[in-house]
C-alpha cells in the first residue's frame, strides 16, 4: 500500500442555491493515493467544519457504484477520467502529485442545481412514472416458470436493467438528452414477454414525458455510452427508436 501523499489543488464549484450565481473555489489538500475521491472530499469537509466553515455539499450513498447517487463532473468528465465506474469508485491513485482537479455538478437544463454539487434529478423519476412498469397487482401473477424466457433475451434485458439512474448520460451529452437512460428502461421491458402487452404504449408515454421535461434531442455522438458507469449500449437507443416508430405506425 502507498504511503506517499499526493498534494493537490482542487477547484470546486460552490453555489449557495439555484438563485445565486456560483463559482469555482480553490482548496489545497494532501491525500493518500489509496483514498477514494469522495473520501478526499470527506477529508476536505472535515477540515472545513473544524474551521467552522460550511462543508462542500455533495451527494453519495452506497459508495459501491450501484445506487447512482454520486454525480460529479471531474476534469470535465461525468464520474471522472476512469471509464465504467461511478464517482464513488474513483481512487486518488489515478491522479498525479501536484495536479489541479476541477470538480463540478452535472449540468443540464433538466437537472437544476440545488446547492454546490447537488442537482435535482427527479425528472428521471417522472419519466419512469409515465410508464416504466408492467401493470401487475401483487398476488395476481402466474408461476415464475410459467413463461420460459430465452437465456439471451433475459441477458439482454439485464444488460439494459443494469442502469443505475445516475444521469451521467445526460450530463455527458451536448444536448443534455436522456435517450440512453430512457431507452435502457424501455428495452428492459421490451425484451421480456411480460413487457409485451404495454410495449408500444409504454415507449410513447415515456418519450412524451422525456420531451416535456426539457431533455434535448439525440444526435448520435455516443458520448452517453462512453461516460456510462455501467457501459449501457447505444443499441438500446436504436431499439427504442424502432419501437417508437412502430408505435406510431400501429396507431395509424
Amino acid at each position, binding site marked *: 500500500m502507498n504511503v506517499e501523499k499526493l498534494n493537490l489543488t482542487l477547484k470546486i464549484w460552490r453555489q449557495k442555491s439555484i438563485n445565486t450565481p456560483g463559482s469555482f473555489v480553490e482548496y489545497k489538500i494532501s491525500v493518500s493515493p489509496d483514498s477514494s475521491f469522495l473520501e478526499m472530499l470527506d477529508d476536505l469537509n472535515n477540515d472545513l467544519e473544524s474551521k467552522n466553515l460550511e462543508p462542500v455539499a455533495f451527494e453519495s450513498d452506497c*459508495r*459501491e457504484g450501484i445506487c*447512482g447517487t454520486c454525480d460529479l463532473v471531474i476534469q470535465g468528465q461525468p464520474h471522472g477520467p476512469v471509464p465504467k465506474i461511478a464517482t464513488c469508485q474513483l481512487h486518488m491513485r489515478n491522479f498525479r502529485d501536484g495536479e489541479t482537479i476541477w470538480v463540478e455538478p452535472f449540468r443540464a437544463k433538466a437537472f437544476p442545481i440545488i446547492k454546490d454539487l447537488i442537482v435535482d434529478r427527479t425528472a428521471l423519476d417522472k419519466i419512469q412514472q409515465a410508464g416504466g412498469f408492467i401493470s401487475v397487482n401483487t398476488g395476481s401473477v402466474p408461476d415464475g416458470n410459467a413463461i420460459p424466457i430465452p437465456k439471451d433475451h433475459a*441477458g439482454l434485458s*439485464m444488460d439494459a436493467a*443494469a442502469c443505475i439512474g445516475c444521469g451521467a448520460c445526460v450530463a455527458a451529452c451536448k444536448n443534455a438528452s436522456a435517450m440512453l437512460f430512457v431507452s435502457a428502461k424501455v428495452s428492459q421491458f421490451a425484451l421480456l414477454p411480460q413487457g409485451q402487452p404495454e410495449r408500444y404504449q409504454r415507449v410513447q408515454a415515456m418519450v412524451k414525458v422525456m420531451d416535456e421535461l426539457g431533455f434535448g434531442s439525440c444526435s448520435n455522438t455516443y458520448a452517453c455510452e462512453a461516460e456510462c458507469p455501467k457501459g449501457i449500449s447505444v443499441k438500446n437507443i436504436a431499439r427504442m427508436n424502432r419501437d417508437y416508430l412502430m408505435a406510431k405506425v400501429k396507431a395509424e
Partner: protein
Amino acid sequence: MIKLDAKIPEGPIKDKWTNHKFNMKLVNPANKRKYDIIVVGSGLAGASAAASLGELGYNVKVITFHDSPRRAHSIAAQGGINAAKNYQNDGDSVYRLFYDTVKGGDFRAREANVYRLAEVSNNIIDQCVAQGVPFARDYGGLLDNRSFGGALVSRTFYARGQTGQQLLLGAYSAMNRQIALGKVKVYARREMLDVVLVDGVAKGVVCRNLLNGEIEKYSAHAVVLATGGYANVFFLSTNAMNCNTTAIWRAHKKGAAFANPCYTQIHPTCLPVHGENQSKLTLMSESLRNDGRIWVSKIKGDMRKPNDIPEEERDYYLERKYPTYGNLSPRDISSRAAKEAVDDGRGAQGRDSVYLDFRDAIKRLGQNVIEERYGNLFEMYETITGENPYKIPMQIYPAPHYTMGGLWVDYNLMSSIPGLFVAGEANFSDHGANRLGASALMQGLADGYFVLPFTVSNYLAGDKPTLVKEDHPEFVAVAKSIDDMTNKLLSIKGKRTVDDIHKQLGRLMWNKVGMARNEKGLKEVIGEIAQLREEFWKNVNVVGDAKDVNQCLERAGRLADYLELGELMAVDSLHRNESCGGHFRTEYQTEEGEALRDDENFAYVGAWEYIEAGKWELNKEPLEFENIHLATRSYK
C-alpha cells in the same frame, strides 16, 4: 412495563397464516380510499408495501431521505433471494427453508414468523418475474438457482451480482405505477425525525425537509417504518453512508420496544481499512472462499511482503483449526478467527487484515479458470486497492454488515405502539441471532408484498383509527421539540467535528461490542459511550443553518441517536450471558470455540423499553420451539 403479546395465531404451524388471513377483518373496497397510510423508507420492504397498499386503494405517503426512492440501500445487495420453489428437484420445501432459517438463526427467532416467511417466499419470485425482473435463466428459459451458505439445497434466485438492485427496481416500478394512478405520493428528501402519538396510538410523523430545513407534519391512520438497520453505529460498515437508526430510535424513545439490539452480523470477506479517512467498507462475495486460502504469518509483527513469506512460515489458521470446513467455515467463526490472528499481532504486514490467497488455485486450475469464476471481483479489488490479486494475495477483514435486532413487532408486524408497523431490517422478527445469506431480500419483500397488506387492513378495519389533523397539539409539540433539538445542535459550537466523534464511537463499538464481547469490556464501554455522548452534547461543532441544505446537521442528528443506541447494544450484550449467532461472548464458548447457547435461561427475545437516556427496562418474550427441537448449531 410493556405487555408483549406476539399474537401468534392458534393451530398447527402450517395453518397459522392461512387461518389468520381468514380471521382478519377486511375494509370495504369503497372505504379504502378514506384511509391514509405513511410508509417511511423506500427500500425493498417500504417500496413493496407502498405499492401493494396503493393497489388495494389506500392513500399512501412515502417518505424517503433519498432524492429518488430507487436509491435505498437494498439496491446494493449482491447475491440473491431465497425461495422454496424446489425447481432443482433437490429436496427443498417450505418446511426445509423454515428449518434452515430457524437453525441458521441459532434458535432465537419466532417460529411462526419464520414459517410464514418461508411460505410466502415462492410468491415473491412469481411477483418479481411478472414485474419484469430479469432473473438469471438456464438454456431452457427457466429460472436458474445457485447455492448459498447454511443450506444443502440450491434455492437462491439471482440477477447477476445485482439481485438487490433488480428487485428494488421491480418494487420501485410497481410503486411508480401507483404514483401514476394517484394512489401513492412520494415525499423525497425528507428525513423522518419523530413519530406522533395521540393517546398512545401512532397518528403520523414529523420530518425535516432536507432541501430547505422546514419541519413538516404528516398525519395518517397508520404508519409503517421500513428504514433499515443500524450497522453504521460502527461508523465503518458495509451500509450506505446515509443508512441510520434515527427513525426506529426515535420511535423507540416514544415507546416502541427495541428487540435484541446485540445481534449484529459481521461479514468475513470485506476489504480492509486503508487509513483514517476511510468512509465505508466494501463487501467481497463470500464465494471467493471456495478457491482462496486464508492465512497469516506464523511470526508476530512480520512485515515481509506476502510473497516473501515461505510456505512453512504461513499459518492457514482456518484449515488448521477447522479441518472439516476449512476456508468455508461459517461467517461468524471465520470473522472471529481473523480477529484473533490480528489481535495476536500477526495481521498482514502489521495491518488489520489477513491474506486470501489464490496462488494454489491458480497453480491447480490455471489463471483463466479463476478469471472465469471471479473476474469481476478481482477487477473490483484492483480498482479499490491498486493491487493485482492474481499476483499478490488479497487482503481481507471482517466488517459489520447487517443487524438482526430491531424494533419488536408482533405477528402482524405491529410494534408495541398501536398503529406503528415495522418491516424489513428495521424489525427484529425473522432472523433470530444470525441471518443466512440471501434471506434479507426475501424478508423485506415478504413483509411488504404479502404481510402488511393484510395486517394493516386488519388494523384499520378492527381498531377503526381516526385521522388527527396536522395542527393537533401533539403534532405542534413534536415539531417544536425537533426545532429545539436542531437549535441546540447548532448552538453548541464546540471543537470536534461530527465525524470525529462518530469515528471514536465506531472504534469503541468495534473493539468492545463487535465480533467478540466480554463482561469486562462491556462494562467499561457502557461508561465510555455515556461519556462520549456527554462530550458530543458539549463539544460538537455543527456548522451551517437550520433552514438550508445542511448535511452536517443531518449527520449530527443521526450520531446523537447512535450514541444512545450504542449503549443499549452494550447493555443487551452484557445481559445476555450466552453466545448465539452474531452475539459472541468469549466467556461462553465450547472447547472448539463455538458459540455456547444457554437455552434454559435465554431462549427469549430481549425487548428493551426506553425509560430515559441511558436507562432501559427489559421485557421478555419467551420463544417456544414446538416444531424444531433446540439443538446445538453444527455444520460439521
